[in-house]
């Protein structure tokens, strides 16, 4: 399981970072979403990876740490609302600047 989680984290983060560095706002927003998914998964796995152990003390012998789950819940809510905001902002910028380039204008546009 550790290997699967590690690979997933790596793929999510690297694709996220790659997309954030792209020039169009849509890919940047997509990259931010992937990055935040990667981060959430990472935060969740910080409570150590166990199976079949609920986050309740007293029911079973091996219980899992409930705090990372609470943290992740907060992080998901925040990143979700931020994504919604950045989508709206990207749309607004694309309409106002008539370009979906992150700088509002494509530096190579004249050359084409």
């Amino acid at each position, binding site marked *: 399981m550790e290997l699967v989680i590690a690979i997933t984290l790596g793929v999510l983060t690297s694709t996220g970072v790659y997309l954030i560095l792209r020039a169009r706002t849509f890919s940047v927003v997509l990259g931010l979403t992937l990055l935040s998914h990667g981060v959430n998964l990472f935060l969740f796995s910080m409570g150590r990876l166990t199976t079949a152990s609920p986050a309740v003390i007293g029911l079973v012998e091996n219980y899992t740490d409930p705090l990372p789950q609470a943290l992740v819940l907060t992080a998901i809510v925040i*990143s979700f609302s931020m994504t919604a905001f950045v989508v709206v902002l990207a749309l607004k910028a694309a309409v106002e*600047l008539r370009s979906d380039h*992150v700088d*509002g204008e494509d530096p190579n546009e004249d050359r084409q």
Partner: protein
Amino acid sequence: MNHLMIMPIVIPLLTGAFLLVMYRYNIGRQRSLSIGSTLLLVIFAVWAILQAGVTDYTLYRLGNWQPPFGIVLVLDRLSAIMLLLTALLSLFCVLYASRGSDREGSHFHALLQFQLMGINGAFLTGDLFNLFVFFEVLLIASYALLLHGGGRARSRAGLHYVVINLAGSALFLLALGILYGLTGTLNMADLARVIATAPEADLPLLKAASLLLMVVFGIKAALLPLLFWLPRAYSAASAPVAALFAIMTKVGFYSMVRVFLVVFGLDEGSPANDTVLAWLWPMALVTLSLGGIGVLGASSLRTLTAYMVIVSVGILLATMSRNDEQLLAASLFYLLHSTCMTAVFFLLADLIGRYRENGYDRFSVISPLSHRWILGTVFLVAAVSMASLPPFSGFVSKAWILQSSSRLSDYLWLWAPILMSGLLIIAALSRAGSGWFWRPEQRADEAAPALDGARTATVCVMIAISFSLAIFAQPVMDYLEAAARLIYEPSGYVEAVLGDYVGQSREVTE
């Protein structure tokens, strides 16, 4: 438990929520609510200053949970100073905005209150994850405030600002995840205790976490490779918003002091702490130099002020990274001065821009100006204060920084960029002033609008505060020295927050 302590968070929260629900209220009532709320904040901040002067650490346990299990708010001298600075600054911003800038878009006052809630919370909290949450609160309010008024320049600057801060939030969570995975706690005092006794094997990960935190706070504070969003964002924002944002970079500075000097600083010469400070020192010096060059190259007064913010950040972080108690106290004095004066200049750029016939605040345009004498005098006094000439607070703070750094071995590395950037600021401001006030004609009387007394008075009172900082320098300096002494005694912080808990757990293990 003293419930007054949570008021700086609760008051803006309630006011903001109420303003949001009652958005149909006429603008006059919204303004008076907003001004009333910030006035209350000033009163509570004064109470906080007095309270922190009497007891070193005042605790507020949310839900009365015992730390480190529950979230705890901690009031010490440093947070009290920051609270008062924020409250005063926001009061002037609200007063200035109430003369009309708040009508350019909707929900100005509600957003401003939420921003204040986030800033105050960040200064008070004693929990690292809670710090993240308050960062997000102040950020999401600032995203919307930056866009207040609309327009192409704001959309473009806003996009950069939002994207870099969202990436920063992701890094913040990564750092918190690493710290929690290693230590099993996020309470600052408890973290400090665990980090001080961390085994050798955990050190690389601790270093990684602290460097990630440095990047996160570096984005907020505008440290060198992460500052390129700032000039555009600050010069695009409307004047009162930009003036309020003068405190935002200082939130980054405050977090660095709190996290690196207190949380990572309990163990004398902790390796994780040394790594961060070693990185911080050269980067802060380059930030400072770059800020100075930017000041000279700026094409409008707002951009110039944005680069002055960068200069101030460079000075603050460079002095902090030397890890010296005296120097920290001096840089806190500089923080008060620079926040106040950069805010003054953002407002001044707007004020003078209104009375120029065309060109707003751009230097390239020579344009007739009305009320030349009054505005020129205000500009001159503000420029003298900003350029750190006597008799204003800038002179006191810089002299104190230079004096207390002279004991260090490598002080010339600090002196050279500080003095050079000061010279560049003098050159840039005198060029701007002579271009605006000497060369052009007096604007024809029939076209000239009357001078807005309230706006001018707001700016004048802020300059007067900077002046009174210099006059009452002695009590302020004493207070700041006590604040810095507390920062360099992290064991007192840990003892105050965890006193009962550590005692109990010792009993159990025995």
